[in-house]
């Protein structure tokens, strides 16, 4: 929590003198951006407004209009998507993926980070687990297909062990493939995040706990874990952002219309886009943006109150 306060302060005051000093207005700071300073921000701001902000406003407007005639139709588009089978399926699948995948990723990577932290080859293990981040998804497509197809390597291995083979891409087991590829890709990223958290835990407190006779498990539960909680929020948010990229693997391995359990919101958006169903995309996009931002801010509020 200490570190959190510090950063928050950094963000608000940004290393500038404290608030009381701000009444002093010199030539250096007059409250407005001078022309030369505005030039730094202007290109980026223009681009962001032109490519995202204004069009997003337009899209939000469109979500209340019919696709062809552009007449105002109230919340008709929203009711349409919430009665749309494909949309409901995609939402359930994405929610299930997030609910299963992210906790799994967090716990597994924390365990790995703890193991790496205790080993003498910290740097080496970090690079090993980070490596999948560098591997382009496209290079792995053929291998994923080899591994997971009906007569593939994984089933061959299972058959040797006497386990009945599963159709990994054609049955409900496809969900496992999805989660596996997500874990494979994001493990290193999350491990590095946990490691920064672990490194910030004070050594003195750990030593003190040990001297007081705490076991390793107790030391972890009561000393290390409480100091890691501020990290949980950021890691969750970042894992959530990265979870949307799992579409790449899913799309390349199984195409635009994969098995039902694998059909994510990203597939749906892509298919709507190719079919030019703009009114639906607009409505669904606004919904997702709202859920995203409200979710993140609610999480942040929750975390603030806990501290």
């Amino acid at each position, binding site marked *: 929590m200490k570190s*959190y306060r510090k950063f928050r302060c950094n963000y608000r005051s940004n290393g500038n003198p404290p608030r009381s000093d701000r009444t002093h207005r010199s030539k250096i700071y007059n409250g407005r951006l001078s022309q030369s300073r505005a030039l730094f921000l202007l290109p*980026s701001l223009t681009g962001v407004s032109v490519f995202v902000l204004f069009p997003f406003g337009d899209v939000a407007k469109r979500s209340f209009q019919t696709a062809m005639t552009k007449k105002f139709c109230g919340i008709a588009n929203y009711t349409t998507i919430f009665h749309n089978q494909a949309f409901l399926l995609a939402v359930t699948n994405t929610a299930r993926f997030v609910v299963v995948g992210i906790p799994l990723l967090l716990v597994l990577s924390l365990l790995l980070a703890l193991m790496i932290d205790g080993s003498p080859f910290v740097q080496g*293990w970090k690079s090993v687990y980070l490596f999948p981040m560098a591997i382009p998804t*496209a*290079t792995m497509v053929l291998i994923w297909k080899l591994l997971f197809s009906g007569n593939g390597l994984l089933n061959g291995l299972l058959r040797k062990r006497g386990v009945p083979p599963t159709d990994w891409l054609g049955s409900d087991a496809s969900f496992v493939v999805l989660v596996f590829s997500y874990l494979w890709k994001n493990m290193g990223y999350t491990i590095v995040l946990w490691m920064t958290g672990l490194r910030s835990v004070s050594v003195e407190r750990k030593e003190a706990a040990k001297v007081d006779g705490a076991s390793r498990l107790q030391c972890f539960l009561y000393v290390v874990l409480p100091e890691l909680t501020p990290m949980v929020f950021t890691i969750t948010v970042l894992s959530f952002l990265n979870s949307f990229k799992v579409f790449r693997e899913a799309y390349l391995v199984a195409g635009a219309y994969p098995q039902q359990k694998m059909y994510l*919101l990203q597939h749906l958006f892509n298919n709507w886009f190719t079919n030019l169903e703009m009114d639906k995309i607009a409505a669904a996009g606004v919904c997702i943006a709202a859920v995203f931002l409200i979710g993140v801010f609610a999480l942040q509020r929750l975390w603030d109150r806990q501290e």
Partner: protein
Amino acid sequence: MNVFFLNIQKFKQTIKQEWNDNMKIIPISTVHHKAWFRIRTFFRRLSCNITLGILAIPVFLPVMMVMCASIKSGNELTTLLAPVVNSGAGEIQWNFFSLYPTGGHFFRLLFYTPEFFTVFWNSMKIVFLILLGQLFIGIPAAWAFAAFRFRGKNILFLLYLCLMLLPFQVTMLPSYVMLNSIHLMNTQAAVILPAVFSTFPVFLTYRSFCEIPQELLEAARMDGAGEGSIFLALGLPLGSGGILSALVLGFLDYWNMMEQPLAFLQDKTLWPLSLYLPEIDIAHAGRALAASVITLIPATFVFALGQDYLEQGIAASGIKE
């Protein structure tokens, strides 16, 4: 020579003495003296490393498989892949060693497949133009957020953060609306321009610019330096870590870019590698594998060179704002 030798002996002795002294100074709790404690620690570490090693196998195995398969001869690949291609009878028999290793696939890919070159350079062009654009547009913006105070800064920064959080699927339609109205659809600019204005690098470099002490900038201003020269002479060198990590993270992400070209590029001659590769028919597995290996090379290169910056970047993205 003799004198030199003697000196070394003496040096060794002093080192040994110092080492012993130091070992005495380090406070060691009573438990550490027991032999079983050391043995237990040793085995604990060993088991940790063994577990880590076992878990690392699935990380490297696929890459090894691509590499090994890419030098297998055509016939061997056909028999190997037959069960998967026909989805019929038979079981796949994997063999890491190829019976007739050949570089033929690479040769054919590089010298007889002109479209591969087009696609490769498409990828290069897209990635480098995006990164260049981010350098010229995103980094000054990050500097403005970090070094200046102005009205509405907090709100603007919050806005940038929110935009960073939105997934591509949400910004897809807005970008499409804009690109369509300025007739950029189905050109590479449609992929490049929205990515140039991505707010993620702004956020990352902002973090490293924030670590520059404000007093330094004030001092430079007092001495009469212009804002531009302060940025070039102080900001860029001092914030280079953040800039490089944004570039490394950006390269790895954009080299792997799929959603944007899939939505905005219909013309296959404009596609990047990441879309072209899966298009290769499994009947031409050799070519696909060779292309896979070649796609892997730049990414691995950047990863190996910029790993420190990559880690810094990840750590910086994790710091709560």
